[in-house]
């Protein structure tokens, strides 16, 4: 792959985003477009913006990689990311828009009238934001390394820098238009290459994707191992190797023994045609026809893991800090609902394509199973199928690279703005008197921690870390929102206990998985996919503690509930109740 073309794609996206940010602000300055009504954002634009912000690195790269390795089970990611919006639409969107609460801490303060709870909710938002930023930056590292061969640290630093500059320079002020543009860029960037690749596959005689046995090399293939990897070899396999195997320098024909083989950096392995692809250690990839069946991966507790993933994705969406904010761009609740339906359609269309990459990747880029970098399949497939030197291959590679970069930028900037807002409002405001400075410091902090973590080489699958972020969100803010909106007996003590217990359990599980690596057996499954037990735990804690503390129900309970649940156009005295007046000056 030509590094210049890759860099060009990255620069193109960064510059066009910045330009659009500036032009979008400058647009419509003439007196002819004077009318305010013409400035409201139509549901269509708004839905594009929401989808643009939501489709992250996990969606663009991670899902295809997971499907490549693990098959049908991983379709749940696409389904779950989309279905989360359905729950958001049905249960949360309208009441939350009526509440006027702008962030999750705002909602906690408004509904339960507690400053301490607000602080706890802020801590939750920051944790989830960091956890969700980490895989975006990590994916940027993978992309730049794959496309341009730069060291792994360049990607995270580059994305963090671009986001930092654009947020600080105010480039995100036309954020709706920028994000809407990014959605269409991403759809184009993933759809056009996918269609071309399917046509190539047809021209190739439509070879069977799920042949018997493990994935095989379709032609003589040389794989250069960029990072040390331990291979699992099923049967002794004759390869041509240049480099280090199990610590010994080798050059020439060698037989890889069955079992584990340690391959050193820079080693080149050449496999013959039809040789089975050895898998990277820990990548319990699925082979043969089982690839197309659910729960055939042979991982223990697959049923539990699948359901836990579903719960995390379905319930976690509403707890992501950057998701709720966009709903306020809708002029009213009706527009909010139409927007959400359009979002569902737009996300649904997008998630058709990663599946195609995952399937074709088994045929044309099986060496990714060897290096374990399955996330790169979307980036590598065009040149693998069309030939690295061909113009078509290069153009399509540039396109997917641009799409991937758009994915990191849009999600990362949305998250950064949300986290920075919470940090500046709830943590820094007492130390830094100027709100503008506080927001800037917040922006730097919001990016610094995940960048350091990404540079720290936490090497986890993108979609896995995202799944963990969703699990924490589902175990904290989902119960807070659902019970807060639909259950009037919730008290601040109950909400706090639920947030601490649910969030604590999920964070501990996430932390254990990230720090110690995934372990095996039931504890491993429980830690790797905690949502199925942490979400009920959080709900139960909130309910039980709330019932035990009936005296702590907020004073403005009924007023708040009326405001949350009465449609905006019903003429109604919503009252002068101001729960926090007593805290003011």
């Amino acid at each position, binding site marked *: 792959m030509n590094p210049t073309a890759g860099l060009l794609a990255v620069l193109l996206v960064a510059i066009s985003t910045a330009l659009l940010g500036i032009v979008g*602000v*400058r647009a*419509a300055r*003439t*007196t002819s*477009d*004077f*009318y*305010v*009504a013409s*400035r*409201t*954002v139509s549901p269509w634009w708004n839905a594009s913006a929401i989808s643009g912000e939501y489709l992250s690195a996990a969606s663009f790269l991670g899902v295809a990689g997971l499907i490549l390795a693990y098959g049908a089970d991983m379709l749940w990611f696409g389904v779950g990311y989309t279905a989360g919006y359905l729950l958001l639409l049905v249960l949360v969107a309208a009441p939350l828009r009526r509440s*006027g*609460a*702008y*962030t999750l801490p705002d909602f906690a303060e*408004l509904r339960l009238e507690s400053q*301490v709870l607000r*602080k706890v909710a802020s*801590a939750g938002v920051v944790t989830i934001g*960091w956890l969700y930023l980490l895989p975006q930056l990590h994916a940027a590292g993978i992309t730049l390394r794959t496309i341009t061969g730069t060291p792994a640290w360049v990607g995270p630093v580059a994305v963090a820098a671009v986001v930092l500059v654009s947020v600080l320079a105010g480039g*995100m*002020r*036309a*954020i*709706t238009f920028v994000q809407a543009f990014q959605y269409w860029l991403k759809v184009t960037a993933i759809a056009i290459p996918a269609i071309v690749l399917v046509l190539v596959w047809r021209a190739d005689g439509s070879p069977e994707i799920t042949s018997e046995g493990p994935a095989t090399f379709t032609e003589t293939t040389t794989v250069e191992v960029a990072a040390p990897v331990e291979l699992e070899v099923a049967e002794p396999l004759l390869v041509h190797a240049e480099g280090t195997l199990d610590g010994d320098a080798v050059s020439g024909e060698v037989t890889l023994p069955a079992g584990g083989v340690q391959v050193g950096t820079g080693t080149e392995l050449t496999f013959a045609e039809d040789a089975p692809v050895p898998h990277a250690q820990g990548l319990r990839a699925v082979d043969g026809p089982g690839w197309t069946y659910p729960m055939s991966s042979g991982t223990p507790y697959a049923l539990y893991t699948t359901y836990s993933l579903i719960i995390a994705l379905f319930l976690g969406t509403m707890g992501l800090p950057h998701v709720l904010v966009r709903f*306020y*761009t*809708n*002029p009213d609740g009706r527009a909010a609902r139409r927007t959400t339906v359009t979002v569902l359609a737009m996300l649904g269309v997008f998630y058709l394509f990663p599946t195609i990459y995952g399937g074709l990747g088994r045929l044309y880029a099986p060496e990714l199973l060897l290096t374990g970098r399955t996330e790169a399949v979307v980036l590598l497939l065009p040149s693998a199928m069309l030939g690295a030197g061909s113009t078509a291959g290069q153009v399509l590679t540039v396109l997917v690279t641009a799409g991937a970069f758009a994915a990191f930028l849009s999600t990362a900037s949305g998250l950064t*703005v949300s986290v*920075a*807002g919470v940090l*500046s*409002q709830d*943590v820094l405001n007492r130390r830094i*008197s100027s*709100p503008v400075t506080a*927001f800037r410091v*917040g922006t730097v902090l919001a990016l*610094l*921690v995940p960048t*350091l*973590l990404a*540079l*720290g*080489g*936490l090497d986890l699958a993108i979609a896995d870390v995202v799944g963990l972020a969703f699990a924490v969100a589902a175990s904290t803010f989902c119960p807070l929102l659902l019970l807060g909106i639909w259950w009037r007996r919730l008290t601040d003590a109950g909400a706090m206990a639920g947030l601490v217990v649910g969030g604590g359990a999920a964070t501990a599980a996430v932390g254990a998985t990230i720090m110690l690596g995934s372990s095996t057996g039931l504890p491993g499954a429980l830690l790797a996919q905690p949502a199925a037990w942490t979400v009920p735990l959080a709900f139960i804690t909130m309910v039980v503690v709330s019932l035990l503390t009936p005296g702590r129900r907020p*004073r403005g309970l009924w007023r708040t509930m009326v*405001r949350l649940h009465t449609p905006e156009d019903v003429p109604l*005295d*919503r009252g002068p109740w*101001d*729960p*926090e*007046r*007593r*805290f003011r*000056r």
Partner: protein
Amino acid sequence: MSPELLAAIASLVAVLAVAAVLWRELRPRVLLGPAEHRSTYRILHRITLASPPLRAGLAPGASRAVKHLHALTGSAALALADSERLLAWSGAGESHQHHVPTGEQVSETRVLGPDLVACREDSCPLRYAVTAPLTTSDLQVGAVTAYATGAPPAGLVRAVEEIADFISGQLDLAELESSRAELAEADLRALRAQISPHFIYNSLGAIASYIRTDPEHARELLLEFADFTRYSFRRHGEFTTLAEELKSIEHYLTLEQARFAGRLRVTLRIAPEVLGVVVPFLCLQPLVENAVQHGLEGQPRGGQITIVAEDVGNEAHLSIEDDGAGMDPQTLRHQLGGAPGDRVGLANVDERLRATFGEEYGLVVETAVGAGSKVSLRVPKFHPGVHVA
């Protein structure tokens, strides 16, 4: 740097951030030092807890304060009454609740003996009481009464007096706050009433000038005028959305443009994200009016007005800029400080913004003679209690 080291540093930063927040929240509860500091802290903390409920005035919510004040006196029971009836009781002997001294009956601190206090129930231990009046602005508005089983020591009498003084102080603050709110409301009414005299006169004059030459345009202007007045004179609600406020400005500027006959150029740069933000009613219109009347009126070339609304994190930043006459910053400072002048609209908006969102949310004016002027304000997207009615 090795990956492990970076990971360790990053985790350390995250842990330190969380620890710093926890430390800030928990420090006063953990670190109290020697015994005298502890008791000072406990007393002050009780008082801190008792203050907010009282700040809402003499209302049933005051029971939360009475609990803490009761703990401070160490008496058997403590009662709080307004001028007519009991509001809150903390402690033993609930049967006494029906004849607690009220504000009407208590004019000075008194010790009540068993002849006045003892009740028929044998089990009731209360025999004595100390009662003290609560006053705001020299009016007796209530009474606080501490009950004791034996003759009250002098210390208790003094303590009850102090507590009555403390409550009175809080009630003064409550009154101050509510009068501040009333004042803001009165300001708003005043603003509504005084927006218009010369604007109405000028607009009607401009419309009249079109009636012969361009009746259709005159009709449109008259409808704009109707819409503008309906919004400005509406009765309910202290708050509105930015979109509504901008629509009103649109009507206003259409009318002014008719008067300036094309010499008034307007540029709007509004981020659609902030159209739904809740702002105080009539917080922008006076600023635009100020720019037109003081900045551009009398400029032969007319001028340019730029209205900008930007989306910045959790806030919306608004600004109104004109390239007209400008003014001396020193004079403006005096006028905003309350000195008489014709910039009442500006001072009024400034006052209401501060009263609504807090002191740091006042207007920022950049101006100099001959250099035009720019008025900026910030509005938080969410503020408790601020919502369109």
